[in-house]
């Protein structure tokens, strides 16, 4: 009985997802779509600027109007900044640099051997939660999760005989849908706390929000995202994707041979030595990777130059494995491996070229800022002051919607914090709680918006397994995660408020009156 009732709504939902996928894939090629979106932004900028829409920036107090790009100056800016937009698009340099190193690990056979080792050694049930959890935790290393973890998870699931897109979806859900959750305090915590402090001081000039302000809540969220992500992967995404019938050959699950064992030992030794060097560089207060001006770990050359270390961690163990296993004979093999990886990234480069123009145009128009500020004003005028929990949920949902347009957490919070923090503070809620609520919304819609800067990269990874997959496939695959995370995470927040648990150390929910 429960089976039947469970199946009926699921199938309606599945039909809905299929519809989303069809509609999404009926759209033109993603690159064409970014061109069309860029054109729409230009048209919209003309319309909104003709309408004279403007808002007051909550921090600077200046009037922000829509910038019209349908002018000579707008066209000139597009012409002039074509290359700059492309090169300044953050995923471009980061992804290519990381993948050059990781490419060696892949082409030498190291990653394949490791995958087989993992698959042969670990129980299949634990793989999905492991992938989601690793995705959530990867955010401590900025955007590495997108570049490294999503393709790896796809390969892992593929090796297991499951659908590769399933692994990719689980990792993407962890990395991006669970963006705010973490067991470690990262650089985004510091950024947001700074913005919250500035906003809180509008009401209380002595108020200060600490970097670890949301630590308890985010630690619990890590568990929540892992559990919910695993559930969605196994119960919704897996039945939907079914069996993989694509042409990408599977990593054969034969036992590790003698040459491969030698390679793995060489790689392991290299990783150990490299790690020892890094630890020796960051742990002592005068270590060679510590920034003398700011001896925090997050300011060390290791963290600031993390991409370089990803590159090295791919390159050196890859070479060690290749030499040990006999798959790399000279430097031509190494550079050939990098070249092969760059070849596979060609469609990403094309996509990035157009996506970067679109995102730049959108930022020039101020349309994102205007949406955020006018939406925040609307919520303020809803008259929900009597029902703070509802207001908090409205904040979560609103942040989720704005996140579809402005994906940068700090850019969004810079606009929203000065509106919401004083408003909730006057109602007696602490800035830490408001920040926590914001971060829920900031995460859950990352995975369904083509404006998220790593979206094209994920699409490129999908196309390796399914050349016909488009934006629709990716959105339809991720939509269940997005919905499940929104519901579960909001419930967690409501429960948190109801139970009165502090958001972090020294971060109560309510202001002392």
């Amino acid at each position, binding site marked *: 009985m429960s089976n039947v009732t469970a199946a009926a709504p699921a199938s309606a939902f599945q039909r809905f997802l299929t519809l989303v996928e069809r509609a999404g894939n009926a759209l033109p090629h993603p690159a064409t779509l970014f061109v069309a979106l860029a054109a729409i932004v230009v048209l919209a900028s003309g319309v909104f600027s003709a309408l004279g829409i403007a808002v007051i920036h909550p921090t600077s107090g200046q009037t922000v109007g829509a910038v019209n790009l349908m002018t000579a100056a707008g066209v000139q800016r597009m012409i002039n900044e074509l290359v700059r937009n492309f090169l300044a698009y953050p995923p471009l340099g*980061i992804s*290519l640099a990381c993948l050059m190193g990781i490419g060696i690990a892949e082409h030498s056979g190291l990653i394949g051997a490791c995958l087989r080792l993992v698959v042969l050694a670990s129980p299949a049930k634990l793989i999905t939660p492991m992938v989601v959890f690793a995705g959530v935790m990867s955010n401590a290393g900025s955007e590495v999760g997108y570049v490294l973890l999503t393709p790896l998870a796809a390969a892992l699931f593929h090796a297991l005989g499951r659908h590769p897109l399933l692994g990719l979806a689980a990792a993407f859900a962890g990395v991006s849908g669970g963006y705010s959750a973490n067991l470690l305090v990262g650089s985004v915590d510091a950024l947001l706390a700074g913005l919250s402090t500035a906003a809180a001081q509008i009401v209380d000039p002595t108020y200060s929000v600490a970097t670890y302000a949301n630590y308890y809540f985010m630690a619990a969220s890590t568990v929540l995202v892992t559990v919910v992500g695993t559930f969605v992967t196994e119960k919704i995404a897996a039945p939907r994707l079914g069996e993989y019938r694509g042409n990408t050959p599977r990593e054969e699950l034969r036992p590790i041979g003698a040459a491969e064992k030698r390679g793995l030992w060489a790689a392991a030794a290299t990783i150990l030595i490299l790690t020892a060097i890094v630890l020796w560089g960051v742990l002592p207060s005068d270590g060679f*990777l510590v920034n003398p001006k700011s001896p925090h770990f997050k300011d060390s050359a290791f963290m600031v130059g993390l991409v370089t270390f990803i590159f090295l961690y791919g390159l050196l163990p890859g070479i060690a494995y290749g030499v040990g296993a006999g798959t790399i004979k000279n430097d031509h093999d190494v550079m050939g491996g990098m070249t092969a990886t760059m070849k596979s990234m*060609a469609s990403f480069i094309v996509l990035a070229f157009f996506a970067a123009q679109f995102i730049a145009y959108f930022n020039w128009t101020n349309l994102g800022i205007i949406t955020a500020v006018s939406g925040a004003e609307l919520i303020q005028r809803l008259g929900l002051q009597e029902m703070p929990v509802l207001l908090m949920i409205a904040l979560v949902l609103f942040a989720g919607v704005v996140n579809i347009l402005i994906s940068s957490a700090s850019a969004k919070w810079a606009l929203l914090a000065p509106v919401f923090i004083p408003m909730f503070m006057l109602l007696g809620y602490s800035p830490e709680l408001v920040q926590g609520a914001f971060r829920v919304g900031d995460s859950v819609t990352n995975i369904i918006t083509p404006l998220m800067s790593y979206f094209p990269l994920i699409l490129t990874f999908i196309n390796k397994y399914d050349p016909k997959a488009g934006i629709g496939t990716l959105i339809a695959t991720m939509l269940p995660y997005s919905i499940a995370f929104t519901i579960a995470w909001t419930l967690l927040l409501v429960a948190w408020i109801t139970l009165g648990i502090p958001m972090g150390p020294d971060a109560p929910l309510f202001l002392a009156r």
Partner: protein
Amino acid sequence: MSSSPAAVNRSFFQRFLTVIERIGNTLPNPSTLFALLAGLIVLLSWVFSKMGVTAIHPVTQQEIVVVNLFNLEGLHRMIVSVVPNFVGFPPLGTVLACLVGIAVAERSGLITAALRLIVLAAPPRWLAPLVIFGGILSHSGADVGYVLFIPLGAAMFHAAGRHPLAGLAAAFAGVSGGFSANIVLGTIDVLLAGITQAAAEVVEPGVVIHATANWYFLIGASVLVTAVGTWVTEKIIEPRLGSYTGAAEPEEIKPLDALEKRGLWTSALATLGLTALILWGTLTENGFLLDPKNPTLLGSYFIRGLIFFIFLYGLVAGLAYGLGARTLRNDNDVIRGMDSSIATMASYIVMAFFAAQFLAYFNWTNLGTILAVKGAGLIQSMNLQDQPVVLMVTLVFFTAAVNLVIGSASAKWTLLAPIFVPMFMLLGYTPELVQASYRVGDSCTNIITPLMPYFPLILTFAVRYVPKAGIGTLIALMMPYSIAFMISWTLMLIGWILLGLPVGPGAGLIRPL
């Protein structure tokens, strides 16, 4: 009698080139080489900074010291700058952005159809001068020649049944070896004139150097480079290369069919339409491409955003051809074409990654600047003041030598102009003449230095036809051009001085003392 010593000479010279090629090709993979060179720079910076080498900057009068990279500060800088160096490598964005547009012209079949048209129409004798002269004309379009014209030169020769590397070499010689020669003035003339003027004002305050300062000389040089380049291509390079036995398939030279003709017509119409639009934007008063602050063609957004227009011309002309000739059916064909073009650039991207690090390290150390200033000081102290022609020739050769390590024309001239322009002015020679001599040296050695930022790109093009081609192949291929240009161009300069011809409108050789 006269032919046999020439034959002996030539065969000796050919043997010398073969030795250069062998030595050059025993070098590791170009990417590895750039990585090694980067390591070498770090060591050199340590050695020279320990030796306390310094120089006085001729403009700022500040002391320039060698920046040691072999310390913690240097290490941190290298670690955190990997991605900025990579995406800040000037050719990378230019190459990829242009290519995304040109890909459409290539994929639609426009380029091959146009190639066949040219090869069918032009007598074979005219092919080499055509390619070289086209290379010279491409200078008005900044670095476009490298990206667009050089592969075209190779394809044209290949289509005509000649060795594609000979076409590549001829085009490269025109674009880069004849860098200073031009019929139409470009942005580089404006840049150099500004630097010359600043240096000349030391001696004669209020002097004005026009962008046209070297125009006559550069027109003469265009004829010279075309003639000498053709001679080298046909007498030295083609006998050396022999007939092409590689695997790349030449474009079959069959007459154009009806569909292709229709495609060419629609493409020509679209190109004309776009050109009319640009002319309307740049030539009319208050045109939409003019900068209100500097309403000249050279200051317009057409010139400043030339890459955008290369992209646009490739896209528009390619689409028009594809629709006319029915080779492009939908946007997927277009985007796939872009993907496969970018994929051919994979090895270039890898090379660019390492070359960018190397060039950045080299610039950080100040070694190039110090070398230029020291060398200029040495020439000054050689007491050649009584033989200005010898001094002028020394300037040409010295510039050519410095050009091996500092590729940028304006960066080099910024260092050299304040030393040489006043020196020659005091001897009674005009700044315009000094600038003309400088530009001879600035051109000839571009084609034989792996430090020239586009060198890796040309190598990538060469490898398409000869997979085993290395740095040595390319240097040996270009060396004859470099030597021939050097000798003939210097002779032309001496002849110009002896005949007393002006180097540009209103730019005499001798200034009244």
